[in-house]
């Protein structure tokens, strides 16, 4: 749609600017401030240059957390994206079953993050949980509070349970926009199931799929609550992801400087991914001619 050039529109945006400035810019400036200062307490600060950044860049603790974070995001994307597409292809297209599927699939998306953690905490316990109990009955040694591998598996299954529906719902919305005629043409050409997917469905889903992948990447990259409730970052540090580590450092130990330097680097990564996301979005809007 053609937009009118009108700089007075700034007045309409002003309220948003004020509110978000209050809740984003001021706190972010505080972080910047801490990241370049050191303190001996009593609100006495002195200039510390980039020392905190240097410390954090070479910190083993940060590298370990980052490594775990990247591994986690990679694994859940590798599972959720194909599974989400597969589910979307199998969803009923219309009628009451379609509505019912939409509602039931949305259910995990709307459960408070910590309750998701609680559900799996209870579900996975060997003594009282259905999953843990069943695995134990098959003679599998499973205990997510002691064994790092089991903890990882539980967190990954939990995340798949929580978020696969999001990818499915977005792909489903993309699939719904494919005109019936495309499928009829494919039938005339006797296209195989795979080529229908590859040459009709996948190109039509491309845009929404990209959004879904980026959203999942972002949200998994800042995951905090679910693993915090389920494992508390343990056993040891085996499930301490970036956000958990940052909160431990900032609120638990009050290491303001390092935590602030950490925050800023974290934020820059997010900024980069957001920019990719934004570019994808605007290109998509253009492609649709809006």
């Amino acid at each position, binding site marked *: 749609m053609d937009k009118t050039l009108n700089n007075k529109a700034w007045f309409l*945006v002003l*309220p*948003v600017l004020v509110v978000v400035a209050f809740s984003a810019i001021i*706190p972010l400036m505080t972080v910047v401030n801490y990241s370049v200062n050191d303190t001996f307490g009593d609100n006495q600060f002195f200039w510390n240059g980039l020392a905190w950044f240097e410390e954090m860049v070479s910190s083993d603790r940060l590298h370990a957390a980052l490594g775990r974070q990247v591994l986690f995001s990679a694994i859940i994307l590798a599972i959720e994206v194909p599974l989400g597409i597969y589910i979307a292809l199998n969803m009923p297209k219309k009628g009451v079953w379609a509505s019912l599927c939409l509602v039931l699939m949305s259910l*995990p998306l709307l459960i408070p993050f910590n309750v998701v953690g609680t559900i799996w905490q209870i579900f996975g316990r060997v003594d009282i949980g259905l999953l843990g109990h069943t695995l134990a009955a098959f003679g599998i040694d499973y205990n997510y509070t002691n064994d790092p591998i089991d903890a990882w598996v539980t967190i990954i299954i939990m995340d798949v*349970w929580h978020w696969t529906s999001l990818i499915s719902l977005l792909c489903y919305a993309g699939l719904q926009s494919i005109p019936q005629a495309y499928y009829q043409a494919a039938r005339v050409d006797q296209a195989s*199931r795979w080529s229908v997917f590859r040459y009709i469905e996948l190109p039509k889903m491309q845009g929404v799929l990209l959004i879904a992948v980026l959203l999942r990447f972002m949200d998994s990259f800042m995951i905090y609550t679910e693993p915090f409730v389920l494992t508390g970052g343990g056993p040891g540090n085996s499930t301490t992801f970036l*956000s958990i580590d940052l909160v431990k450092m900032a609120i638990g130990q009050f290491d303001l400087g390092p935590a602030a330097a950490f925050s800023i680097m974290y934020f820059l990564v997010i900024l980069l991914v957001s920019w990719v996301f934004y570019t994808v979005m605007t290109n998509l809007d253009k492609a649709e001619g809006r």
Partner: protein
Amino acid sequence: MRLRGNGLVMALYLLFLLVPIYWLVNMSLKTNMEITSTFTYFPANLTFRNYEVILTDPSWYMGYVNSIIYVVMNTVISILVALPAAYAFSRYSFMGDKHLFFWLLTNRMSPPAVFALPFFQFYSSVGLFDTHIAVALAHCLFNVPLAVWILEGFMRGVPKEIDETAYIDGYSFPRFFLKIFMPLIASGIGVAAFFCFMFSWVELLLSRTLTSVNAKPIVATMTRTVSASGMDWGVLAAAGVLTIIPGALVIWFVRNYIAKGFALGRV
């Protein structure tokens, strides 16, 4: 070759989604004796004691009240400031509009963990720590951008000719906006409000950091019970079930917009 869904795949997937929830509900209806001593697929002695505990103990049910207060505050603030901004983004181009829109997105995407400490210090220093408005304002960080993006997505679907016709008919901007435009995007406002409500309701990190007693939300009350020794599993499960209910109740009404809402109005 209209490709029909495979019922079996869907059934298995839905089963996978529902079994953990079934287990939570199952636990919430058992006594602690039954939970820890035997392993039963259905409550042998059906009891509502766990729910009674929550609904009669102020330290529990005030958690729900606190959560609802700040969530409603946040939803109202978010929608009110987002409406004019979304209109501006959907109708006008102005200096820096693209940068501003992008900047809003980065706020939706930024990890709350980055903001937890500065929020804590900032709200403490202005005397807002442990108040509902502090949490409501903190949640604006991600909900205002979300509302702007969703509303902008809906508003673009309304033809511009409607605005122009209204001006020719002599409507002033506020009257046009309230009388003509808002009814046209009523479903968009509903969806945006739903998503603001939801994301504020499910958030734990900021709401826990910014409260201690007076405004302590239910999600924080629950995690503190987890760390206590001598777990009251039944009550914990019941509290979990009660937090799912608000979302489950309204989900039917927004079912066709769920994808649009999660994708920031862009599907």
